[in-house]
């Protein structure tokens, strides 16, 4: 059990090192010389000289050797110093991100968990019911084939504009004051619903297709046939199939987290929902390099943590992992 987790943990640490290194290397070695651009932007700003002194010397340290620069980058990272935003000067990148990350959690967590659970149930149902299958499968394929942002546009058009049920952008109305009042929570919910729905539906198709194929495969295996010959009910066989089929689906969840987060970036863009993805795209438009890097880093940390949580869950639901790494078998 411990060995399984350490192995995974090592991979995640290497990934983190890799991501940070990339974050450090890209602006230094990319064509177009982004650093020069940054410097010229800061110089015209009020108080820009001070920032040049403090941050650039510390982080970029252009007069030092690349190795020293790299060490310095890590040092400021652990001090929570991700630089200062240019577009929202003089706010620090860290503070901006801290304000945005809550919006990612609030749409991603329910969308991922609910679509995974409901998708698996629907897929299992579709796998054993041929009539429903003929109708549901094309729907699932359509959902999983839709680009996230296009589907978000469709949802926004249908529910937001034609039916006029939900507001089409931002996290809450400009007239509202954030707080624990009923009016605000309702307003917040209305704004939250469409980004959630579109993320939820696009993912749903993929889980359903996966589970459907697993159930069909499992009901054809030898153990299922053996159970059938023993006179077990169809329901019981199906339940066993579901339990076996759920394992690859958990692995699948870990694999597709990256895609889902990418999808969330695009969805937030469509609804101007102020999470990290929206922030990152705005930062790109304004060439706010520190903010871009900060968002990238936090998105990766989020995915890594989620992966780790899934690994732990997997360990509990798959007896093979539990036993093989603790040497019980």
């Amino acid at each position, binding site marked *: 059990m411990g060995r399984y987790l350490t192995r995974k943990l090592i*991979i*995640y640490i*290497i*990934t983190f090192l*890799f*991501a940070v290194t*990339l*974050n450090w290397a*890209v*602006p230094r070695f*990319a*064509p*177009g010389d*982004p650093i020069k651009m940054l410097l010229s932007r800061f110089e015209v700003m009020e108080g820009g000289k001070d920032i040049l002194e403090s941050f650039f010397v510390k982080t970029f340290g252009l007069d030092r050797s690349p190795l020293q620069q790299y060490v310095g980058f890590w040092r400021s990272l652990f001090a929570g110093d991700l630089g200062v935003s240019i577009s929202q000067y003089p706010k620090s990148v860290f503070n901006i991100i801290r304000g945005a990350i809550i919006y990612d959690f609030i749409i991603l967590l329910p969308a991922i968990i609910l679509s995974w659970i409901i998708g698996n149930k629907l897929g299992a149902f579709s796998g054993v019911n041929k009539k429903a299958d003929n109708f549901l499968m*094309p729907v699932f*394929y*359509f959902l*999983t*084939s*839709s*680009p*996230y*942002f*296009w*589907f978000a*546009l*469709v949802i*926004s*058009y249908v529910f*937001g*504009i034609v039916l006029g049920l939900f507001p*089409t952008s931002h996290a809450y109305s400009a007239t509202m004051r954030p707080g624990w009042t009923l009016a605000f929570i309702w307003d917040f919910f209305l704004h939250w619903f469409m980004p959630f729905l579109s993320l939820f539906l696009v993912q749903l198709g993929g889980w359903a297709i996966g589970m459907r194929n697993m159930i*069909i495969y499992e009901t*054809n295996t030898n153990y299922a046939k053996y159970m059938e010959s023993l006179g077990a009910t169809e329901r019981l066989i199906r339940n066993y199939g579901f339990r076996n089929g759920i394992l690859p689906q958990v692995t699948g969840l870990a*694999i597709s*987290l*990256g*895609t889902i*987060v*990418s*999808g969330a*970036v*695009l969805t937030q*863009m*469509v609804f101007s929902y102020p999470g990290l993805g929206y922030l*990152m*795209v705005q930062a*790109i*438009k304004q060439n706010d390099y520190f903010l*871009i*890097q900060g*968002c*990238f880093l936090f*998105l*990766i940390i989020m*995915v*890594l943590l989620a*992966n780790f949580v899934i690994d732990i869950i997997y360990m509990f639901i798959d007896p093979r992992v539990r036993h093989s790494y603790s040497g019980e078998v």
Partner: protein
Amino acid sequence: MAVKDFWKRHENLYFAVSNKKVILGVTVFLAIVALAIFGPMVTPYDYEEFAGRGYQPPSKEHWFGTTIMGRDVFTQVVFGLRSTLLVGFLAGTIASAIGLVVGFVSGFFSGKAPDEGLMALTNIFMVIPSLTLLIILSAYLPYRGIATQAIIVAATAWPWTARAVRSQTLSLKSQEFVNLSRISAAPTFRIIREDIAANMFSYVFMVYILQFNGTILSSVGLEFLGLGPTRGISLGLVLQNAVNWNALHLGMWWWTIIPGLILTLMIVSLYFINTGLDEVFNPRLREM
């Protein structure tokens, strides 16, 4: 008789052309590819040209309507489809090739150093959210062509293929006919070529279809963020313009819904071909 012999020799082909999903998928896919090839020749307009009154819903002159600036949406879609398909094709090919080589090598040398190293690399790339990595890379590249975009999309698309091909190679490797070749002292390269690669052909084909779908989706996403090729038009760019001009709020559904719908239908058609072929190559699934 010759016809019957032909089908007997090419049994898979027979099941392929008589499979409803494959037929439907291939028809839709070819229709959309034809749209990309012949559309730009048929349309009388240029995609940047002022083609008529703006804000027009689909009509005889403008099949998909016009944009707010009076550009023809049909023309934009067919030109955009061309570039998007090209990126998907290039990126899908590169990504499949990388995934195949990595998966194959590490599957063949499983448990040894090359396998450990390649799989660690694969796992790292798998965890990083590819679109955000692409955004970072694209944001720092001020000039991007179709080839550049294809390469950066492919660079993040290959990991799952590598994992899948590795496990497929592993299961093939333990087959009896491979062991037989091994104990009869066949050279390693011959085992790879004749016993393993030959049996993976159908699998590789299906992987390629999925890669094509995946790379098209990520490149359209990049284009939508304005990080696609810096010149020319693409489907994602058409949609980005539509959003920037608030097309939906102005009720111009033809500008946003139609371009995405065509893309989605194409990807669905490829999924249909894929599942259809799965039934063809996998006799167990045929009755379904």
